[in-house]
């Protein structure tokens, strides 16, 4: 239970999709002009992440990992006895993950349209956009590289990182609505100032780094095994605890 809670808050605040990894930036910048549309897209992202991350977790466990195919001849528990023990399909993960995501998005779209036309009308236009949102594929790839241990945790990870993304886009949309009344230097108007505000917000979010003591360093998931998370990023997140004292900056985000 404790690990669920930890993962939940960590994915929302510490490893925030937008502020720590810049995932889903394209739609984050393009669809954040109004709060109402931002809420729509954010909700769709939460929804799709919650569905696709566990699904891709199953794919990863039962098809892609080295020796994962052992269940084919009934040796799930003892993969080394299986005739399929040597199969390593990890190189297929990109194509399989993206295919799953594209299919799921299509499926979700059809189901939502059938059962909840009102939800469809509010989410409808965003759903196709989501298939190519880096946050969705990023969720699955991080899930794989961090070796999330169980299906429940995978679902939790998808859901909470979706919430993190939702928070980010709603916050920036609200700021952009307000900033219309400010006198921004002309060349910075629009895109430029949005980038800089996002940077400041990211600095603010870094103050959450000390929230879970130890953070990445103690998490078993990021150690051992090919550490896929960028070393550069890792350096950044490890340094977080030292930077906490600049938390005054958080005020800007509020």
């Amino acid at each position, binding site marked *: 239970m404790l690990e669920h809670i930890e993962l939940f808050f960590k994915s929302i605040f510490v490893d925030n999709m937008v502020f720590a990894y810049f995932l889903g930036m394209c739609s984050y910048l393009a669809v954040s002009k109004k709060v109402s549309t931002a809420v729509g897209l954010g909700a769709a992202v939460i929804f799709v992440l919650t569905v696709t991350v566990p699904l891709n977790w199953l794919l990863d466990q039962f098809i892609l990992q080295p020796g994962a195919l052992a269940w084919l001849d009934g040796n799930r528990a003892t993969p080394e006895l299986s005739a399929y023990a040597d199969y390593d399909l990890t190189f297929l993960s990109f*194509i399989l993950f993206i295919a799953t995501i594209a299919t799921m998005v299509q499926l979700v779209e059809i189901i939502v349209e059938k059962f909840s036309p009102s939800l469809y009308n509010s989410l409808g236009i965003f759903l196709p956009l989501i298939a190519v949102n880096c946050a969705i594929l990023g969720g699955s790839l991080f899930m794989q590289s961090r070796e999330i241990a169980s299906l429940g945790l995978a679902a939790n990870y998808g859901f909470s990182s979706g919430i993190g993304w939702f928070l980010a886009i709603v916050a920036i949309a609200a700021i952009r609505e307000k900033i219309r009344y400010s006198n921004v230097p*002309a060349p910075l108007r629009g895109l430029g100032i949005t980038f800089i505000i996002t940077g400041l917000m990211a600095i603010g979010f870094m103050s959450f780094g000390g929230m879970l003591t130890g953070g990445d360093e103690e998490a078993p998931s990021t150690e051992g095994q090919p550490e896929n998370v960028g070393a550069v990023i890792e350096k950044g997140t490890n340094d977080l605890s030292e930077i906490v004292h600049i938390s005054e900056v958080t005020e800007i985000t509020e």
Partner: protein
Amino acid sequence: MGLLSKKDTKLILDPLMDDNPITIQVLGICSALAITAQLKPSIVMAVSVIFVLGLGNVVISLMRNIIPSKIRIIVQLIVVATLVIIVDQVLKAFAYELSKELSVFIGLIITNCIIMGRFEAFALGNGPWRSFLDGIGNALGYGVILVIVGFFRELLGSGTLFGFQVLGDPVTKTGLYAIGYENNGFMVLPPMALIVVGIIIWVQRSRNKALIEEA
């Protein structure tokens, strides 16, 4: 330019400055910022995108008349995913350290909006040669920003370029450090990538007033 007509050179040169995919079209930012703390991964990323976008544009352009428009997104995704797998495997084979640093973000080239954007906007309606040039041009425009951001972040953040200490040694206090210069450790942290891009946009739009957005 015997090989390239005027229109063709425009295809390559435009995205470098006034139609830059990152600063003007706002595409492909996702994977661009996370890996620019140092120059080397930025360049590897830029080269990977040039490869994927150049070839992908050609493939899509060749298939443009036989792809049913309803499933074109999935076809495009499969084409990109295949190319990205090639890049990923090559990196794993020849530059394992770098690929460990980049891995998740190499995968994210698939959902890089520049790629889908150029497929949709250009390759589906133009011949292979022009699509190829368009792909190369846009990927170069993307690469230029990556390299600029990577250059400044590595230089100001760690005082190195490609890992070489160009500003002197911070431990033994030689070079610039002898007169009291300090590295700005903040530059290597993620938020600064955003702010550096913001400043690039600022500079670019100050020079070319036509690009300024309406409030």
